[in-house]
């Protein structure tokens, strides 16, 4: 059977994570699914989770009243959605919509915050992974901003 712990261990985000930490983290994890078109969260709502996407596609959107929703990026299988749960005020900045049927593991933010405060070694492992994720996202955003396909950007 596919246990949650096994699913976590196999997700690229947790690749190579110590078994003991995975056991602790599994206590904060649950299986979730979203239908196509369903909003996973909306801007300004409380950010209490993050998601490891196992299948499907999620669009991160900003809503502009004059233009409607603008897709900032999409996240696919193997990627991670959400980091607003990490820092106060724990509110989402953007909307996240499942573009297609999506299965994910939700990790509970309050539970994780407590466990990583109690175990700084695990917290460090966790933060290393998140900072790498953020650095990659920043790099991709910069590249997007460069508008490389325009002749005269």
């Amino acid at each position, binding site marked *: 059977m596919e246990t949650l712990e096994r699913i976590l261990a196999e997700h690229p985000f947790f690749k190579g994570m110590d078994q003991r930490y995975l056991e602790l983290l599994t206590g904060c994890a649950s299986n979730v699914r979203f239908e196509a078109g369903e909003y996973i969260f909306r801007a300004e709502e409380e950010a209490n989770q993050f998601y490891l996407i196992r299948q499907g596609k999620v669009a991160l959107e900003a809503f502009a009243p004059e233009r409607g929703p603008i*897709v900032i990026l999409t996240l696919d299988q193997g990627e991670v959605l959400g980091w607003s749960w990490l820092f106060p005020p724990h509110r989402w900045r953007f909307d996240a919509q499942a573009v297609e049927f999506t299965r994910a593991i939700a990790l509970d933010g309050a539970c994780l915050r407590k466990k990583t405060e109690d175990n700084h070694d695990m917290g460090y492992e966790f933060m290393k992974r998140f900072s790498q994720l953020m650095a990659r996202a920043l790099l991709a955003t910069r*590249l997007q901003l460069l508008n490389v396909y325009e002749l005269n950007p």
Partner: protein
Amino acid sequence: MSTNSTPETMMGREPSAPMLPRPCTVQRVRQETYDTFTLELAPAAGGAFPFAPGQFNMLYAFGVGEVAISISGDPGRPEKLVHTIRAVGATTKALGHLRRGDTVGVRGPFGSAWPAAAAAGRDLIIIAGGIGLAPLRPVVYHVLRNRQKYGNVVLLYGARTPADLLYTKELEQWRGRFDLDVQVTVDRASASWHGTVGVVTNFIPRARFDPSETVAMICGPEIMMRFAIQEIEEMEVNTDNIYVSMERNMKCAVGFCGHCQFGPAFICKDGPVFSYNSIKTLLNIRGI
């Protein structure tokens, strides 16, 4: 293991009088996007136009000028000479006004080719940005014609918006195949786009290929190519197996004029396809 080869120099056909354009007749014009179109040509005197994937021609719009344009057709069907052109200035715009039956001057084929044959037996990762898909499409045709000779084949393609995507029907067909992993993304889109949004390099860490047995072929804006190379190097693909196509301005196409000089190399005769190792030191230098 590396392919140990410079880009294939096999010429489809070494032009006998490289400075003399051959008249070709427009057989078909297809509008690909709002600023990009595909011309299907045939030599006015009849016969075929053999070429190797990655090579280019100089297209002469009579009375306006001459431009370097990659061949974007199927090397297995040399009776059709296909070029995909983005209208950016006087000459490319003039080529955009051509209609069926009109004549255009063609010199070529020129330049080095993608190491499509040397890559047999390996996985292949093809990364294209914008109009950069045009010079890579012949590789895809070649691979599909010889599919059993290759391992995993991944095509990653990025454009600015959904309206900028080339060959959308063909991409759709290729995506439907089980023996080709095609990923398409755009930098920006409205919510009506149901595909991927983000830079093309995002796909690289998740693409399925064996880094120790992979040949990478990359064409697109130079910044995009640099970032793609960094990602591929991070995956530990041997840099001997990374190839890029450089499409800087050129005039004569035969190494006389020096217009397209790129450090010690001439893009027209040493390129446009280079092994990354051979131009590594030049890619980050300004002003060449």
